[in-house]
Each structure stands twice: as structure tokens, then as C-alpha cells.
């Protein structure tokens, strides 16, 4: 370029042109990034708050799953803190050994679903149980915890007909009212048309327990609606990452090798303890997942566009 501009006078002009090119290149780069962000199909629920549910897996290893579930739950609790989100426990059922059987929490804040949507799925742990002195002799145990991430949208209201609900409380039998003074405030709600059941016993006020249970119920029903939408969408374009995210084994926490592997993007992190703190290490992995998903979605989007062009 510009080889003919070799005169002394023209050299200055060439220099100017190169400077200008540099600035323009930078601008093009920024615009590319912007274009990328605009083109990437936004997930409908990215801005939503989230209901996070954890259920410990069942293996013969006994409490290994439940200990792991507890650790994962605390990791997300810390991550919410790290992100300045609000983490409200809706339900927490511990085990006698100090593990966690299942739990649910409501996480609210800035774009919570965007960051947590790829956390749904089966998380696997491999470790030698810490209990017992002769751990060297013990074999490696494998356990799992299931994570479900439900977007909670205020925009789409799930209409729950009170007639469709069966609300169970300890008070169902007997006279009630002033005749009874009992303290069990636990509430269980069954949504009769779908059979979805939720429970809450976090509060001493029965009404607050009921409100929280209803909140969880509408999130669950909302999830069903989304899943119905999603299966309809799958016929036209397959969002493989999405369907994969809620069911398959997505990540392994190998304590023996002190390593976390995310199977979807073949990404590995050393130092499990740091990862479980739910700070930068987890955030970094989540960013990578987001990047990869966005790229994949964009490619699909463009392909769809191309086939549309060719077809039309």
C-alpha cells in the first residue's frame, strides 16, 4: 500500500494515513465486538432472577453425595455474595451427618439467570472420604448432586388458580383458631393439575411460609411453560446447549487430583478449594461457558440466516 507515495512531501502524508488506519482498525474491532453482542441471540430470561434447587444424588457411598451437595450449595451462596446478589434460602433439608439432602434458594440481582443458566445439570464428585484415618486404603468414591436453575420472571405471570391448590398444614385436623395453640408452621402446597409439590418451613409465620412456597410453585410452573416453549422451538433450531444443561453430567470435581473439569468446554481448573469459594475461579469458568455458548449460538444464527437466504 502507498508505495508510490515516496517523495519527501508525501512521506508525511503516508505517516498520517497509517496513524489514521490504526485508529480505524481499533474502531472496527470495537464495532465487531458490538456487532457480535447484537447478533448473539439473547436468551429470553437472561435478566431474570433465579430459583436454584439442589438435590443430593443417591449412591451406596452414603453421605458423600450429601456432603458434596452442601459444599456446592455454599459455593453458590458465596458466588451470589461475590456478585452482590441476594441469596434467600427457601428450603434447606440437612442430613444427620451434617450434609445436605436438598435445598432451594431464591437468587435475585443483576442478570442472575445469564450467569447461572449453565450451572444446571449433574455435578459429579470423586474423592476419598475424609472420615477414617486409613483413608489411603479406601477406594475412590463417586457421588453426584443435581442442580436445577429456574428463571423467575416477573413479567410473565403464572396464573395459579387457588382452586387448583391443596395447601397442607398441621392445622388441617381439629377445631383450629383459638381452640389450638401449636407452633408447627410448615406449609406444603400441591398444584393439583400438574402434581407439582412445594414446601416451606423456613419461617415461624405460617403465612410467610405459604407466600414463599407459592413463590417457588409459580417458578416451577413457569419452568414447565418454558420447557414447553423450548420443545416447540427445538423443531426449528436445536439449542443443544440448553437441553443438555439441565440433565447431563456437566462437571466433575476430582478431589484426588485437585481438579475441576467442565465437560462441555473441556475446561480444567486446579485448586478445588479455591473453586468452591465461589469467587474468581468459578466466575472465570462461567465466563468461558458464556463465551462458548454465545459463539455457538451466533454461528447457528448465521447458518439459519444463510439457509433462509438460500431458500428465499
Amino acid at each position, binding site marked *: 500500500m502507498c508505495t508510490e507515495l515516496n517523495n519527501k512531501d508525501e512521506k508525511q502524508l503516508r505517516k498520517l494515513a497509517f496513524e489514521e488506519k490504526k485508529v480505524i482498525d481499533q474502531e472496527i474491532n470495537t464495532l465487531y465486538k458490538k456487532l457480535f453482542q447484537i447478533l448473539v441471540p439473547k436468551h429470553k430470561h437472561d435478566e431474570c432472577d433465579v430459583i436454584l434447587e439442589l438435590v443430593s444424588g443417591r449412591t451406596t457411598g452414603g453421605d458423600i453425595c450429601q456432603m458434596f451437595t*452442601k459444599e456446592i450449595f455454599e459455593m453458590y451462596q458465596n458466588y451470589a455474595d461475590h456478585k452482590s446478589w441476594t441469596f434467600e434460602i427457601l428450603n434447606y433439608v440437612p442430613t444427620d451427618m451434617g450434609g445436605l439432602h436438598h435445598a432451594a434458594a431464591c437468587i435475585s440481582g443483576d442478570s442472575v439467570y445469564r450467569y447461572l443458566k449453565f450451572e444446571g445439570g449433574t455435578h459429579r464428585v470423586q474423592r476419598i472420604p475424609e472420615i477414617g484415618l486409613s483413608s489411603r486404603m479406601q477406594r475412590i468414591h463417586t457421588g453426584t448432586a443435581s442442580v436445577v436453575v429456574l428463571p423467575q420472571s416477573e413479567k410473565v405471570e403464572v396464573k395459579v388458580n387457588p382452586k387448583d391448590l391443596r395447601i397442607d398444614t398441621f392445622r388441617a385436623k381439629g377445631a383450629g383458631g383459638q381452640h389450638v395453640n401449636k407452633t408447627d408452621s410448615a406449609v406444603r402446597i400441591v398444584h393439583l393439575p400438574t402434581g407439582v409439590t412445594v414446601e416451606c418451613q423456613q419461617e*415461624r409465620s405460617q403465612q410467610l411460609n405459604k407466600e414463599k412456597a407459592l413463590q417457588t410453585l409459580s417458578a416451577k410452573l413457569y419452568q414447565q411453560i418454558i420447557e414447553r416453549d423450548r420443545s416447540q422451538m427445538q423443531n426449528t433450531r436445536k439449542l443443544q446447549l440448553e437441553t443438555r444443561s439441565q440433565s447431563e453430567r456437566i462437571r466433575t470435581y476430582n478431589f484426588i487430583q485437585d481438579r475441576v473439569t467442565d465437560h462441555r468446554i473441556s475446561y480444567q481448573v486446579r485448586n478445588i478449594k479455591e473453586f468452591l469459594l465461589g469467587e474468581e475461579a468459578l466466575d472465570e469458568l462461567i465466563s468461558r461457558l458464556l463465551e462458548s455458548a454465545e459463539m455457538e449460538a451466533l454461528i447457528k444464527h448465521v447458518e439459519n440466516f444463510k439457509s433462509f437466504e438460500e431458500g428465499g
Partner: protein
Amino acid sequence: MIMGLLPHWGPVRVNPIKSAALNSHQFLLRQNFSGKPGPVTATDLVNYWQEVFEANRIPEAQESSEYIVSYVLGAKTFHSLSASSMSTPLTAEQQEQVQQLSAKRLQRMPVQYVLGEWDFQDLTLKMRPPVFIPRPETEDLISLVLEEASQKNKSCVDNAVHQCPPTTPLLVILEIGCGSGAIALSLLSKLPQSQVIAVDKEVAAVNLTRENAQRFQLEHRLRLFHHDVLSSSWEQLLPWGPVDIIISNPPYVFHEDMAHLAAEILRYEHLDALDGGNDGMRVIKRILELAPYILKNYGSVFLEVDPRHPEMVENWLQSRPDLFLSLCATHKDFCGKPRFLHIQKTYSR
């Protein structure tokens, strides 16, 4: 490991009703606890006291044990304790405190009095014997009043569009029999444009409501005094003129049912707050007789009653056309029992 000690406490398992005998058992318990090896976690302690309560036939053994241990650890329920605080050993002081509170529960003291506090909706209220402990049903009574208030507000705003300046109307509410203050304070906190007059025939209740009002800094919109609707003059109830709403959870237990109530209620709660006379309507009738004098035109009365009462009250109102009151709705509680009455003043005198 604690469970292993239980069989040594043979005496605890025998009939516990005599409280004199209980004291010696508690002494036994304490001795065994201090001799117990190893750290004691919240879970251990809950299991331990649950067994003790069960052995002593204390109702809600598990719940009682969980509430007491959670309270000592600064949580409201066992389910809201984090996993780490559940497995952290309790200090000797904490164990001692659990022991002292559990000793009260062993005497059938209601858990709410044992802890000295309980929640009504989102308010944590002080509880002290013999002031009536609010029941969960009553939380729904508040929701009914809030609905009524929001409708009133809406119709006022609609009117204001056509007429004069849109000022939010002040809602004046009278509560008869305020007890711990649960209803009055809940309404004050949820309706910032309201003022509440609350009365109770027991000085202990008036004092407790005042303490609870101060707790939430709601006393400036609350007029609170000692008053018995059965004997005092109704003019005292109108420091601000006629009211928009009368609300009450009056004593409504039929007198013949009183003997069948649980020991927690009979031994600790003020029975006048429950005993509604032969038909359970002694105070209900009195409130309805006063209502036409106290209410503004088209003002409302909200009452919590026994499920047998809605029909009885409706019949009684028909026999008293001089009161100009009509039953506009009966609402069910969360168990599906007809529990709440909405009565309206229909005619201006």
C-alpha cells in the same frame, strides 16, 4: 452418642405429669449432660430434647426442641440454620440456655412464651403470659382488611378524579381486644395512611401491645388504652370520631369447649381472651351492638369467629334490624373452615 445416655434416664420416661417429680428428673438430665464426652452440636441437642419431650409426652416434641435450639443459636427455625451452624458445637452457656428453656417447655408452657417472642406475618412480637398468643389463622384476617382498604382507596381515587384534590384518605381502625398487638401493629405497618385505636380489658395486654408498638416505632399512629367493651361506655372509643373499620378476634370458644383445650392454653393463657360464653357470642354480640354508633356510614366490621358462628351471627343480625348491619361475606381460613365475617353498616342514622 447422646442417645446412648438415654437409657440411664429411666425416671424421665415414666409418667411426667407431676411437676414435683419433674424437677428431680431435670437435675438428673443436667448431671448427665455435663458428664457427656465430646462436643454437642445443634442436631445432637435437638434429638436429645426431642426424646426427653417425647418421653414426657410433651406435644410437638420435635418442633419444640427445634425452635428452642434454633432460638438459642439466633435463628427462627431449624430449617433456616445453615449447615455449618448445625454442626458447630454449642458452648456450655448455650447448652445451659437450651436446658433452661426446655425445662419450661416440660411444664407445658407454650413455645411462644418459652422463647418470649413469636412471629405474626413479618413482625417478631414479644410474647408474655398470660397475654393471648396470636394464632396463624388470624394472619389471613389481616389480608382481608388490606383488600378492603385497597378497594376503598381505589374508589376514593376514582372519585377524586372527578371532584376535589386527590388526597389519600386517612383510614381509622378500631381493634377490640388487642392482646399482644399483632393485628393492630400489622395493620399499622402495612397501611401507612392508617391510625389505629386499640383497646383491651387486660392491663397486661395493653402494656405488651405498647412494648411491641415501640419495638416497631408504630406508637405515634396508635391510640392505646385499657377498656372493657362489656362494661365501659362506647363514647371513649371515639377519640377521632367515627371509624372506618372495626376489627376483632374476640373470645369465641363456646364455654363448654373450654375444658377440652390443651394444657398449654388452660395453664398459661388468659382464659377470658378465649371464653365466649355459652354460645361463644357474648363479646361478638356486644361488638355488633356498638358498631352502629362507632362506625362511619358503610363502615365495616371484620371478625374472626368459630366455624359454627357465621350462620348464628347471620340469624341474630336478622333478628336485630335496629342495628342496620348486614353480613356481606364469610371467608374461609386456610383449612377451608368458615372463619372470618365481613359485616357492613348499611344505613345512616
